[in-house]
């Protein structure tokens, strides 16, 4: 019987632990099958995944529009670049420091404006992103190297034991970070913090009245999102060995924004799909040269036409918990 | 003679859910007809279907021998059916007067008629005339309800659809509103009234329908509905409930 094996396969794919194992295995084998070019594409896919995940906290979970996320990314990257080239701080030490710098920046900037609603907050994030980029160009205190940027950034290493400098190693570094981030964020989604974020997204007044201090939770989302974007900046800077303002434009923020929406707000697998779209699509369409951005633009429209909720939207209520009180047999249920 | 508004075997669904199943209702010239029903029974859906706000999946809506099934909402107003929607829905950032003017949007070229309609609304609701320059969003709930009804009257409709006009109103206002409804009717407008306040609704109407889960479960002259025991328990909360409580 042909169909006999079919439910078996379907079952494997429907079981979450197995699915995760399979996907992880695929990620582990992949770089050994392809050339450095494809490893690098997968690396940038990872960077965008991390950026998408970080924005997803703010946009997907809390529903705050952020069109300046590249600003946090830039701060992470420049913190790494400047401290490494000017003071020789090792890249791995800078990983948490970059996160911290971006987080601190988010905290300071957004504290006074966190009460703004919807599009008014959006314009502040947008302005913030532009301020960061313009500041980098203008080379304040001779730190950022102006439009030239900062160059000669080291690679991550721990003495001689662990050296990350090939495409393969960078690939594993970024996906290790992405993996850990996914683990942490999944747990957060299923905690009172994750729920509090969602409550705010759904109805801020009701959330406040239910005991959620929306102000601090919104700030927390920005701070955490910024920190993760800062980490992405760190890895990006050391991979490229140089940073320049061109990489942190408004357009970059828009791309990150699209990642979350293409995937599906608040959905972690969705973010991965969105990041894949954003990073792979232009590469796949390289042969079309001049026309590839035309195709890219149309593809974005088509995506939204056919999957307006995202490719893989988050499902609610899918997880069934059994009664904790025990008696399910009551008439009132 | 065919009824003024005739709804036959109407079905409506939202996605997969059938909100209205095979409902037939008619409204004669000069009548007030009440539709009763629990929350989610489909009352608002019914009115919205007549007004062209939701697509009809089966059956027909006929207004003075014209089929309205595919007619868009803005044209239905033109034909003489006006809806005062659930929850008032005045335009809060427009003034009272602008709200009223929009009610006569389809006839905006006929200045005189618009003025006449406005005078009529102001005589029905004198308070609106005092507040004509005020932003509608700053009116109290009762005033907003009056504005909503007044706005629906601005197009001088032949059929007025009222969706829960007494919702959230103080008793004194409820009385006022129902008096005004009776007066509007007396001036010649036929009215299809959807209400939770069954006492009042049956008091004012000549006939009634009871909607449950999208189906008509009872209909007839108001007097016979009032005396129906089941209806009393479910919607009137009268003697039957008292009995139940005593147990």
């Amino acid at each position, binding site marked *: 019987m042909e169909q006999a094996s079919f439910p078996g396969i379907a079952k494997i794919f429907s079981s979450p632990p197995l699915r995760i194992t399979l996907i992880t295995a695929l990620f582990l084998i992949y770089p050994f099958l392809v*050339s*450095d*070019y*494809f490893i*690098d*594409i997968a690396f*940038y896919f990872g960077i965008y995944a991390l950026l998408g995940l970080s924005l997803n906290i703010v946009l997907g979970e809390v529903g705050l529009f952020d069109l300046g996320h590249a600003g946090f990314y830039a701060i992470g990257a420049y913190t790494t670049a400047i401290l490494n080239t000017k003071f020789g701080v090792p890249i791995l030490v800078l990983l948490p420091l970059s996160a911290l710098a971006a987080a601190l920046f988010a905290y300071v900037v957004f504290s006074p404006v966190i009460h703004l609603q919807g599009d008014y907050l959006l314009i502040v994030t947008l302005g913030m992103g532009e301020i960061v980029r313009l500041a980098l*160009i*203008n080379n304040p205190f001779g730190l950022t190297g*102006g*439009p*030239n*940027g900062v*160059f*000669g950034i080291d690679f991550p290493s721990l003495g001689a034991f662990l050296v990350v400098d090939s*495409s393969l190693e960078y690939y594993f570094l970024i996906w290790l970070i992405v993996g850990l981030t996914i683990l942490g964020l999944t747990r957060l989604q299923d905690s009172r913090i994750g729920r509090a974020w969602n409550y705010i997204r759904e109805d801020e007044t009701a959330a406040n009245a239910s005991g959620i201090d929306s102000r601090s939770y919104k700030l927390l989302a920005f701070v955490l999102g910024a920190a993760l974007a800062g980490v992405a900046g760190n890895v*990006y800077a050391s*991979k*490229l*060995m*140089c*940073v*320049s303002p*061109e*990489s942190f434009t408004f357009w970059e923020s828009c791309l990150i924004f699209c990642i979350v929406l293409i995937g599906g707000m608040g959905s972690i697998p969705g973010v991965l799909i969105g990041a894949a779209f954003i990073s792979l699509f*232009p*590469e796949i369409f*390289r042969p079309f*040269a*001049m026309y*590839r*951005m035309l195709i890219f633009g149309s593809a974005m429209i088509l995506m939204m036409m056919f999957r307006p909720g995202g490719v893989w939207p988050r499902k609610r209520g899918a997880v069934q918990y059994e009664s904790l009180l025990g008696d399910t047999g009551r008439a009132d249920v | 003679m065919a009824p003024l508004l005739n709804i036959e075997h109407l079905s409506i669904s939202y996605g997969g859910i059938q909100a209205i199943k095979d409902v037939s209702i008619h409204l004669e010239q000069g009548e007030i007809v009440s539709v009763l029903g629990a929350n989610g029974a489909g009352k608002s859906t019914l009115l919205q279907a007549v007004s062209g706000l939701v697509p009809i999946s089966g059956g027909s809506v006929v207004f003075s021998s014209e089929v309205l099934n595919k007619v868009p909402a803005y044209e239905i107003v033109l034909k003489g059916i006006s809806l005062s929607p659930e929850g008032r829905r005045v335009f809060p950032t427009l003034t009272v007067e602008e709200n009223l003017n929009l009610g006569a949007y389809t006839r905006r070229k006929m200045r005189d008629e618009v003025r006449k309609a406005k005078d009529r609304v102001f005589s029905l609701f004198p308070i609106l005339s005092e507040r004509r320059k005020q932003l509608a969003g700053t009116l109290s709930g009762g005033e907003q309800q009056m504005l909503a009804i007044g706005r629906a009257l601005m197009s001088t409709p032949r059929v007025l659809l009222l969706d829960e006009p007494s919702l959230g109103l103080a008793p004194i206002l409820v009385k006022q509103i129902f008096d005004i409804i009776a007066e509007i009717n007396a001036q010649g407008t036929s009215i299809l009234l959807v209400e939770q306040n069954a006492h009042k609704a049956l008091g004012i109407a000549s006939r009634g329908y009871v909607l449950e889960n999208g189906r008509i479960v009872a209909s007839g002259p108001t007097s016979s509905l009032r005396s129906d025991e089941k209806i009393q328990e479910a919607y009137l909360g009268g003697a039957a409930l008292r009995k139940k409580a005593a147990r």
Partner: protein
Amino acid sequence: NDTVVIGLQGPITGAWAYEGQMAKQSCEIAADLINKKGGILGGKKIVLKVEDDAGEPKSGALAAQKLVAQKDVVAVVSTYGSSVCEPASNVYEKFKKVNIGYGVTAVRLTQRDFKYFFRTCGRDDSQGKFFADFVPKKFNAKRIAIMHDNTAFGKGLAEDTRAALEPMIKNKQAEIVYYDAITPGERDFRVSLTKLREAKPEVWYFTGYYAEAALLVSQARDIGITCPFVGGNAAINDEFVKIAGLNVAKGCYMTNEPLPGDLPYPEAKEFLDAYKARFGEIPSSPWPIYAADALNIIAYAVDKSGSTDSTVLAEYLRDKVDGAPGITGPIGFTKQGDREGVPFYLYVVDDQGDIVVSR
């Protein structure tokens, strides 16, 4: 296998698409010319492999990866824009692939001790030095205004010029009365110009691109700035004249590598004729020509060394090439990979709107 594959990385899309597409056309012409003459290595034809970097650093690195992944690519003509070139050249260096920049003038690029990086264009400081040596004397000007556009290129040139003027400033032979940036992509510079006007300069050097240069000059004349305008090598071309209009453009100067049309070499004539025959006009900026020359010198090195191995080629280019024929004149490289002896001229827009060498 009877082909030799040479890569070209450039901004085919994005804000600098104009430059990228001209570079592509130039390389096609150059390759055609060589192929028509029988190719290299005894008859092998040159094939061009183009990758787009959209003028953006990350895409630059990916484009480089893409090119090094293709084992048959012998060497790469790589790119316009220093900040895009930087990460890309890191990739090429790592994979030991000769890469020759054509529109990358940041000084630092050749100070990294890279083995595989070269450039056929000059550096910012060579032009800055030319300005300092030549211009103040010519205009008998002491009060100098320098304006840049905050791009990697424009700012670099401005800083190098300032550095080159330093000795004269010490001797009180010159004074920088204005030094500031404008923002590229903007259209209204009246504010900056009003400031410049108040500084009363005797000569005004703008180191940015022609798009802004044209706006600057016309707005400057509007508000009554009359001192000579000197543009850097990205500032003046036919477009400049078109945008600014003849009235404004005539009498504007620029420091430049010899323009395509002024190149006295037979190679230049041959190239430009072919280019014009195919595309109707000659390239309007100097950079595409350097791209063509980068391709030429790669072909030359492959042919002469008889090898397609990048390491051999790199050594050959560094040590053996000297005075090889090029469209922009004889080509040779310093130990760091810089072009040896790039000449500069002072150009002026004449009454017909043509850009001619100023005598």
